[in-house]
């Protein structure tokens, strides 16, 4: 269906080739997963297939790409729209109309399909993606998962043979992601659609993939079955790491598979006592919410929320998109419209603090860490932060160096990788030396390697600092929560539905359980490290 012959891609002024000497074929009805570090060229590869690279973005391409027998060299992406559908990372940016039904019909309108045929096709797609109840809704009012489904529907309506998806679930909560992926799975099986999917959160998709294409750091590409590729890849979901840690003969990809192979180990683990939860924290209360309600207009985002964050705690805030996580975090820095109740930061209302005073107490890294940065280069940014926060020159840079291996200090912050940018934003925040650090969706753009670095950084922030800081993270990433958080607060529709130790909260709901828990249930293990520790004492 898709064939690449000696394909190389380089962008003008780039220091390295993005992709080098690619040779592969994808057959009809295959689901191929593209993995690689952030910035390795996953998006470029996806866009190469339908010609958006180089027709739309520039770049120098050599070699030959054919899709369904048509070469993309001469054809523009628009001319391939009947063969290839593409769904981007942020579907909301790509919507042309305001209403679900019209959005799906848009592709047909541009192709001049007769109205009667069009009606039928739109109807089919609405049914296929279970969008019929939403047909007259405004797209902007839909949830993330629903929007992603609309985008897939809009691409499918032209009956393409190939569907390309660039990180379709990265902005979605686990349930919405499941919804999108199961639909993809069905499309592949029912319609024989060929799907190419770029993704960095593998735990969700790995079981659906027929083959994996891994893009290495030098633009080299290896392709093979998931088992082959993941056995040697540093990028791997917990389930693969678990099978490696348990020294299973083969890498397992689905919970069902690995459970069948680990019956005896599970029996052993059942009898090993779980790590003791930390003793009750009686530290000073850093953040306290008392019966807080937040409303935008007449719409309540939070109702009657009360909890305390004490010194030395890492607390995860979870819940579906729109459950009120961001509103809650923002209330801690006085940026939510609170209509009743009170928020106190070490006893004071953040609304009454000016910016300078606030950052001494709370450091807040927003969803886009880049929002915090406005310097022209890394070094410039660090010096500005020193000045803003009134600390000795060089403090911020030292913190940054301490956090991670820093990039070229003359690089522009926007040119950094997601992980590096997050690190820089975090250093800027830390140089004001706040007691409480708040992170909103920190792992959204991070691959596994960057994520494990973040986990270490966060642990160090809390454990190693004499100051005994606290960290609050809002995230969809259950694996991150399992690794770092001691406590989880679970929100639904603006109310707290669970608030307790991580182990209790995460193991209670199958949708939000980490992979290791799913594998080893009913024993409540959370992470691979825990299991390895436990088994270390009794030999495997």
């Amino acid at each position, binding site marked *: 269906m898709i064939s690449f012959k000696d394909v190389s891609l380089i962008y003008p002024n780039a220091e390295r080739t993005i992709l080098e000497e690619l040779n592969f074929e994808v057959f009809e009805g295959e689901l191929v997963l593209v993995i690689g570090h952030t910035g390795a060229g996953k998006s470029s590869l996806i866009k190469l297939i*339908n010609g*958006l690279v180089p027709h*739309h973005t520039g770049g120098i391409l050599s070699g030959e790409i054919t899709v369904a027998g048509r070469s993309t060299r001469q054809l*523009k*992406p*628009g*001319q391939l*729209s*009947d063969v*290839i*559908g*593409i769904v*981007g990372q*942020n579907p909301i*940016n*790509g*919507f*042309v*109309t*305001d209403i679900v*039904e*019209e959005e799906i*019909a*848009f*592709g*047909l*309108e*541009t*192709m*001049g399909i007769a*109205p009667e045929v*069009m*009606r039928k096709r*739109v109807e089919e797609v609405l049914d296929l993606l279970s969008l019929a109840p939403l047909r007259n809704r*405004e797209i*902007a*009012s839909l949830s993330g998962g629903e929007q992603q489904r609309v985008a897939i529907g*809009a*691409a499918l309506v*032209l009956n393409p043979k190939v569907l390309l998806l660039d990180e379709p679930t990265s902005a979605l909560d686990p349930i919405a992601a499941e919804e999108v992926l199961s639909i993809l799975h069905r499309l592949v099986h029912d319609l024989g659609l060929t799907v190419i999917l770029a993704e960095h959160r593998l735990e969700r998709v790995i079981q659906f993939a027929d083959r994996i294409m891994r893009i290495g750091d030098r633009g080299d590409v290896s392709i093979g079955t998931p088992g082959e590729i993941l056995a040697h890849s540093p990028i791997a979901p917990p389930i693969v790491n678990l099978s490696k840690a348990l020294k299973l003969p083969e890498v397992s990809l689905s919970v069902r598979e690995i459970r069948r192979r680990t019956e005896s180990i599970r029996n052993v683990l059942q009898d090993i006592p779980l790590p003791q939860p930390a003793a009750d924290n009686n530290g000073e209360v850093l953040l306290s919410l008392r019966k807080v309600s937040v409303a935008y207009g007449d719409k309540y985002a939070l109702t009657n929320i009360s909890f305390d964050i004490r010194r030395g705690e890492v607390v995860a805030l979870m819940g579906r998109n729109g459950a009120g996580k961001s509103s809650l975090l*923002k209330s801690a*820095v006085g*940026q939510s419209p609170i209509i009743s109740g009170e928020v106190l930061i070490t006893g004071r209302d953040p609304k009454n603090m000016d*910016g*300078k005073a*606030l*950052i001494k107490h709370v450091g*807040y890294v*927003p969803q*886009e860490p*880049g*929002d*915090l940065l*406005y310097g022209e280069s890394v070094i410039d940014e660090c010096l500005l*932060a020193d000045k*803003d*926060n009134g600390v000795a020159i060089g403090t911020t840079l030292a913190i940054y160096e301490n956090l991670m291996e820093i990039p070229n200090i003359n690089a522009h912050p*926007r040119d950094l990788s997601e992980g590096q940018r997050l690190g820089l934003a975090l250093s*800027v925040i830390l140089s*004001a030396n706040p007691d409480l650090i708040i992170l909103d969706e920190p792992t959204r753009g991070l691959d596994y390697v960057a994520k494990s670095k973040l986990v270490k950084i966060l642990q160090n922030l809390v454990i190693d600092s004499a100051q005994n800081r606290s960290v609050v993270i809002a995230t969809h990433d259950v694996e991150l929560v399992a690794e770092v958080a001691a406590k989880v607060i679970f929100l639904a529709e603006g109310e707290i539905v669970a608030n307790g130790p991580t182990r209790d909260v995460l193991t209670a709901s199958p949708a939000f359980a980490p992979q290791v828990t799913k594998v080893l249930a009913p024993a409540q293990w959370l992470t691979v490290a825990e299991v390895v520790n436990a088994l270390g004492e009794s030999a495997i």
Partner: protein
Amino acid sequence: MRLVHPLIWWLWALLLATFVIRADNILIAAAVASAVTLVVVKLKSDNYWSKSFALSIRLALLIIVVRMLIAITIGVPMPGQILFRIPSITLPSWMVGIRIGGDVTSQRLTSTFHEVIIIATVILLCGAANSLASPHRMIRSLPKAMYNLGVALSVATSVLPQIVKSIGRIQSAKRLRGQKTRGIRAWRGIALPLLEESLERALDLATAMEARGYGYHGKTTKYRVEPFTFIDLVMIASGVYLVLLSATLLSHFGVVVLALFSLVIVASPIAIVKR
């Protein structure tokens, strides 16, 4: 009851603007402005375009205030009853006829007020058209020959509401760094990321349109055909009627009656149009 074609809303608003300018009367302008506000409140949809009316009200008020301030301080002297006097600057002899400060006459204020109310009403009408007719729907009714214009317009209009959101986000981020969010320096810090983000969005949309074959195929068709109907005709006719007959009506019935009359005519879509 049915939807009105987006083009009709624009045409209607333009005709009303012409009428207001031609009638050149504060009372009539006020009547049209209040009727249009009523129509928008009753008929606007819930999408983000509808917010542009609130924005245009603010803009209109701002223009009124600024224009009145200028009228008080600068301008050609106008004879009439002196209301009050502010300190004046003596200008060189070649700038004769211009004053800064000095006497403020009632004539000066009324004529300026008159003029600025008309301008404000026209701005309100544009805002109303924008919030009643989604630019997205309008662009899709453009003929194929205007393909490039269509892409450019879609991209431009879809970026606007997003920019408003981004400004809020970036401003709150500035506070998180302990900085003031007002002042020119702060704006420089906001402008760059904003520009970058908007460009990225625009590029995303252009890519999406391209990938879905926009502009590559000869004939396009309509999923929802939006024929011109009787209601469209009534709306346009009422606008044309007001424009053409404004002078006659004015001399015949006097200002008050015409103002009431136009209030009713302009507000009539509330009764016949579906939101």
